[in-house]
């Protein structure tokens, strides 16, 4: 019961801050609401008894990536009014299309999971190690090795791409 109340309170905060992120006029404020949003997502992980994921969420997203966002937003002068374009709504259709696609996907997942009986994902009791961090590590390097390696490859590609783009002469 207490868990459910905590979940709904945290979820309400997450959604509320998410709305503020897109509705605030000042870009720096919007980035700050994003940080708060990430912190509440971390709280959700704590509620799900995944402290490792919560700490990583704060370290990587709130403490790392958004700091870089903030750098960019602060250095780019956004106080200047945007340049006029003959069609200010030129991206509206694209945005609507993407939003509809995401909504459709979420609906499909909801339908898919509600029609099938839930299968618990690798219950902690069957693993040879104890402790949240150890269990995450164990699963990443056994059952989920290939997705893990593909994800790290993707990050490597992004990193090399960033270096190539930023540095014209190597």
């Amino acid at each position, binding site marked *: 019961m207490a868990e459910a109340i905590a979940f709904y309170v945290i979820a309400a905060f997450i959604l509320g801050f998410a709305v503020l992120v897109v509705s605030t006029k*000042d870009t*720096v*404020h919007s980035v*700050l609401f994003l*940080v708060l949003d990430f*912190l509440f997502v971390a709280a959700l992980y704590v509620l799900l008894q995944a*402290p*490792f994921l*919560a*700490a*990583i969420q*704060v*370290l990587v997203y*709130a*403490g*790392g990536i958004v*700091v870089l966002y*903030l*750098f960019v937003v*602060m*250095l780019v002068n956004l106080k200047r009014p945007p340049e006029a374009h003959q069609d200010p709504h030129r991206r509206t259709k694209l945005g609507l299309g993407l939003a509809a696609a995401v909504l459709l996907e979420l609906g499909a997942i909801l339908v898919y999971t509600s029609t099938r009986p839930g299968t618990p994902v690798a219950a902690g009791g069957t693993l040879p190690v104890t*402790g*949240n*961090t150890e269990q995450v590590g164990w699963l990443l390097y056994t059952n989920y090795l290939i997705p893990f390696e593909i994800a790290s490859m993707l990050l490597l590609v992004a990193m090399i791409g960033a270096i190539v783009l930023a540095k014209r002469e190597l």
Partner: protein
Amino acid sequence: MIDTVVIPLLKIVIVLNATLVGVTYMVLLERKVIAWAQSRLGPMRVGPYGILQPIADAVKLMIKEDITPVRADKWVFTAAPIISMVPALIVYAVIPFGPEVNLFGRQVSLYVTDINVGLLYVVSVASVGVYGIILAGYASNSKYPLLASLRASAQLISYEVAVTLTLVSVILMAGTLSMVGIVRAQEAGHVWFAFVQPIAFGIFFIGGLAETNRAPFDLPEAEQELTGGFHTEYSGMRFALFFLAEYANMIVVSSVATTLFLGGWLRPFPNVAALGFLDFVPAWMWFLIKSFVFLYIFIWVRATLPRYRYDQLMRLGWKFLIPLAIANLVLTGIVKVMLL
């Protein structure tokens, strides 16, 4: 009820208050030590040898006028000092000041909590503290604080990489992320990690100086170039919060260094039975003594070394400390695999 609510609350109250008192007295200690380094007396008027000076300072800062610049971003300007203070204080939740002791017939552990991801918690909470500095510079709407805050955050992010890499080598040695577990691993291995990881220890100390914006890396506060740093526009208690956060962070770095490298609450040479008489000093006292040595070195370094230039600082971080930390990590991994 007593074990789940009363004792943790008491511990939180004690740790928070002890930290705040420690922080205010760090300010006095710094003024005193720097004065002695320069053959001066330092504060002498308030109380015998000036020991009541922190109280006078606190009263002065609280009754000073609190100015918010007209063109500042009010909400962010107000939040920034709070954002830099809070992470510096909540880190103490996982610092182990001592083992479990028997207090009035009840087993009490001398730490607020021991979580499975203790060290990761310290790193992630510390990484949120940088927002205080960035936002202070931005919200002041003034060019020097903005430049200083960009410098400060670039410095913090750069040195965070090197420091976190050294922490990974310690985690490899200990095989756990729990702060208590790391001390226990040093007890079981009969050696402080400072002796098996001297390079990591060195990088951690240098990185710790840089991450707390202390001399010789106190560029964000270089008054010749930036008039006063990211807190130029702040006054009164809000300025004091930045000031206290810096000292609280120094205590955090010292406590973490003590826990990771100097055996936490263990007495020196815990494996030599002939030194058993040292046990008359309680474990938490050893922890405080070791942390105090670190804090003294912080002040000593400030009194001794001149400030780095900004490009030298960045070069030291990215071209020397980070490669060295990675090499140390790889070496640690190889040795660990070979020996097991």
